[in-house]
């Protein structure tokens, strides 16, 4: 993937060009590209005068940042205590089987990214699956399949 430097510059110029703006800038890049391209980080490193290793440390520290491209549809399976006792593991296993990937991976066609999260704050609805920021409560391994067939935008 080639990174457009002028686009990056417009993202960076929205913030103060200083060390403290690193995280907001990375967040905007993450929204733009759905991941943090290496070339983009190098450009940020030069513009903000922050060592590359520090940016890499921040990018690997926060789960909100990803260094690998993510799929168009992001599926988060809640593995919190309440969801866990109500069978979130089975839901996740069925999703993994249906998509043919493990949790944390993206399908080869770039359609789906499957991830586990620890609590989405809707324990009464457990097990919860969040598909593109839309919450689906009381999921079962069967219901999950219909979630995949009705593709959102």
């Amino acid at each position, binding site marked *: 993937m080639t990174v457009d430097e002028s686009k990056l510059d417009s993202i960076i110029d929205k913030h103060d060009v200083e060390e403290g703006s690193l995280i907001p800038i990375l967040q905007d890049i993450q929204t733009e590209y759905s991941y943090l391209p290496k070339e983009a*980080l190098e450009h940020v490193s030069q513009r903000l005068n922050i060592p*590359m290793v520090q940016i890499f*440390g921040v990018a690997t*520290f*926060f789960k909100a940042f990803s260094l690998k491209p993510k799929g168009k549809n992001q599926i988060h399976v809640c593995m919190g205590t309440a969801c866990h006792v109500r069978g979130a593991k089975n839901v996740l296993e069925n999703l993994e089987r249906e998509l043919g990937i493990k949790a944390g991976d993206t399908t080869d066609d770039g359609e789906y990214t499957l991830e586990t999260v620890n609590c989405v704050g809707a324990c009464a609805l457990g097990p919860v699956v969040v598909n593109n920021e839309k919450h689906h409560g009381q999921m079962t391994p069967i219901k999950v399949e219909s979630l995949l067939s009705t593709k959102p935008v």
Partner: protein
Amino acid sequence: MSENTERPRGEMVTFSLNGSYVQADPKWSLLEAMQFYGLNIPTLCHDEGLTPYGTCRLCVVEIGKGDRSKLVASCMHPVREGLEVRSHSSRVMKTRKMIMELLVARCPSSKKLQDMASMMELKEVRFEPANDDCILCGLCVRMCEEQMAAKAIGFAGRGTDRYITTPFDMTSDECRKCGACMYICPVCELRCQGPQAETTLCSGCINTEPVCAEKYDDATCFMVPCLSCVKGPMDVK
């Protein structure tokens, strides 16, 4: 030295160190003050040329009195007027031994850790040895940044997955391969038996010094080697 370079007495702070009142520069950390007064405080992540980091926790001391006393890392704690510091109380020694035990369990192949464990008379390691090669003390990271001005290596990841690496885990252009990180690393040096030692704890040099008189709650004997109360060879295990 001329009188001008001498600091006026009023600028010093007075605090209690193991029961005796001592004076120190307010810019010092507790560790620096204790080292100035000749106390031998074990440290791993501290180096005079680098900013203190406070990760190894071996330099813990007890401050405050009675029930309100707490343990702080002395390398990060500034000296303050009226502070009550105990550097070798039984609580401190117990904590230091526990930290040492955890460190040795993590990297049993390090000679420096083994030697420090011997100095602390650590007798057993109750944890599963992890046989890791890093204690995340951050010495190499600070060395690279502050003394070598390269900023080639740093921490990545978080929590139990934290590790030291170059950006994107690839050979870094910033790295000049000066080797300062290896020079300062406390766990790079292999212990005498080599990497394939059978026991977690070396014990090779342990108890070669006769164990001195009992330790009291606040005080301990600082004579190394012991000169005042040497016991017979039969007391040496």
